[in-house]
C-alpha cells in the first residue's frame, strides 16, 4: 500500500482482477490526463471495467460525501427553519388578507377536491359567500404517486419498470428484437381509447411501454392535457 505514483496499466486477462485502484481513481476524477486517456481506452473494450466504473459513479452520485454532509448540516438546518417559518408566515398573511381563516378539513376522501370539501376555499361564488372578492387559488390535495420511484432514472408503475432514456420513460421489457408490433399513439383520443395504457399516463407525454408483446410508443401533443 502506498500513496505514490502507481504503475499504470489497465490491461488484465479475463481471470485477473482489473486495476481497481485505477477504476476508483477514475471514478473520483483523480487520474492524470494521460492516465485517464489510458483508462478510457481500456474501458472501450472491457465491459467489466465499464460496469464497475458506472456503478462507482452511480454510488458516488447517490451517496454525498460524508464530510460535506456534516459541514452542510448547519446550513441545511437553517434553510429548513427558514422555509418552515416562511411557510407559516405566508399562511398567516394569506388568511389575514381575506379576513378568513380557512383551515381545510382533513380530507377524508383523497379524491375530493378542496372546493367540494370547503366551499370557502372555492372560486368565491358559492352560495352564502359575500365578502370573498379575491378568488383564492385552489389548494390541490397532495396526492402521493401510486408508483414507486426506486432510484434516479428508474420507476415502477403497475408492476412494470421504466428507465429514463434521453428524457423519455422506456419500458425495461422493451427489446428491438421483440418489437413484432409497434403502435404509435400520437393523440389524446387514441390514448384514452386504449384502456391498457391508462395506468402509465403518469409517465408523461412521451414514453414507450410493452403490453401483451405490443410496443406502444406514446408521443402526445403538449396541449393534449
Amino acid at each position, binding site marked *: 500500500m502506498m500513496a505514490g505514483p502507481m504503475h499504470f496499466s489497465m490491461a488484465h486477462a479475463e481471470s485477473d482482477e482489473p486495476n481497481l485502484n485505477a477504476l476508483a481513481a477514475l*471514478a473520483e476524477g483523480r487520474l492524470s490526463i494521460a492516465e485517464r486517456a489510458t483508462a478510457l481506452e481500456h474501458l472501450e473494450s472491457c465491459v467489466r471495467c465499464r460496469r464497475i466504473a458506472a456503478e462507482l459513479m452511480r454510488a458516488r452520485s447517490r451517496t454525498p460525501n460524508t464530510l460535506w454532509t456534516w459541514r452542510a448540516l448547519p446550513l441545511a438546518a437553517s434553510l429548513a427553519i427558514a422555509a418552515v417559518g416562511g411557510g407559516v408566515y405566508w399562511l398567516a398573511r394569506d388568511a389575514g388578507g381575506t379576513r378568513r381563516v380557512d383551515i381545510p378539513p382533513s380530507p377524508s376522501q383523497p379524491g375530493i377536491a378542496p372546493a367540494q370539501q370547503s366551499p370557502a376555499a372555492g372560486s368565491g361564488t358559492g352560495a352564502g359567500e359575500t365578502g370573498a372578492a379575491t378568488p383564492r387559488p385552489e389548494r390541490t390535495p397532495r396526492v402521493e404517486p401510486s408508483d414507486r420511484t426506486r432510484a434516479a432514472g428508474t420507476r415502477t408503475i403497475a408492476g412494470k419498470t421504466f428507465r429514463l432514456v434521453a428524457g423519455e420513460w422506456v419500458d425495461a421489457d422493451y427489446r428491438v428484437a421483440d418489437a413484432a408490433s409497434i403502435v404509435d399513439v400520437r393523440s389524446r383520443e387514441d390514448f384514452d381509447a386504449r384502456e391498457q395504457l391508462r395506468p402509465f399516463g403518469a409517465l408523461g407525454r412521451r414514453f414507450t411501454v410493452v403490453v401483451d408483446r405490443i410496443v406502444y410508443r406514446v408521443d402526445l401533443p403538449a396541449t393534449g392535457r
Partner: protein
Amino acid sequence: MSETSTDRAERDLALVRRCLDGDDEAWRRLVDEYRPRMIDLAMRICSAAAAADVVDAVIADLWEKRKLARYEGRSTLATWLGAVTINAALNARRAAGARLEQAIPAERMPDVPAPTPGPNENAGLVKILTDAIAALPSESKLLVLMYYEQQMTLDDAAVLFGRSKSTLSRTLTKAREMIAAEADRLSRERLRIPLTLLRAGADLGTLDLDLRSACAGPRDNIGPHVSK
C-alpha cells in the same frame, strides 16, 4: 475542498495501516463503517442474500489474504472498497450463472418460453446498430456505451471523461447522427433497403430506444472480454 480530500485520504491511509498492523479496533471500525455500503453496492449486481455473502467474502479476503494492502490511496477507501465489491459481485454472479447452466441443461428447460422471434429486420437492425456503434471514433463510442449500455448520466460521464456536460451532450448528439448515417449505409449495403424502411420510420428519437436495446446485452452479460 482539496484540504478535505487530503484529510480524507490521510484518514483512510491511516486506518488501512492500522488494519494491516493487526489493530482489531481498526478492523472493527472499517467493517462497521463500510460494510453496509458495500452490501448496497453488491445488491445492484446480485440478490440481497448473495450480496451479504459476497461482501463477507470480500472482507475475509481483505483480512486473511491481506488484500487490503492493495489499496494504493489514489482514491478514497470507500470508492476502492466499492470497486473491489462490485468486481467480486460480478464474479459471483457469473459463477452462479455457470452453475445454473451446468445443473439445468438447456434441453431440460421446455417450460421456459423461447424468445419470440421478431421480424428478421429487427435482428438485423440490432446487428447493424452494434456495428455502427463500433465504427464510431474512440471517445464517441465509449460515451455511447456508457450512456446506453451502462445507463450513465451525463453528469457522471462528465466526471469520468473530464469534460463538461454540454460538450458531452454535443458529442452524444453527433454520435447519434453518425450512427444513423452508418446504420443507413450498412442497411442499404447488407439488406438493400434504407434504414427508414428497416426501422419503420426511424428517426433520431426512436433510434435512442434502439441503441438502448442494442446495448442492453453486454451490460448484464459480463463474460470473456478482450482487453487492450
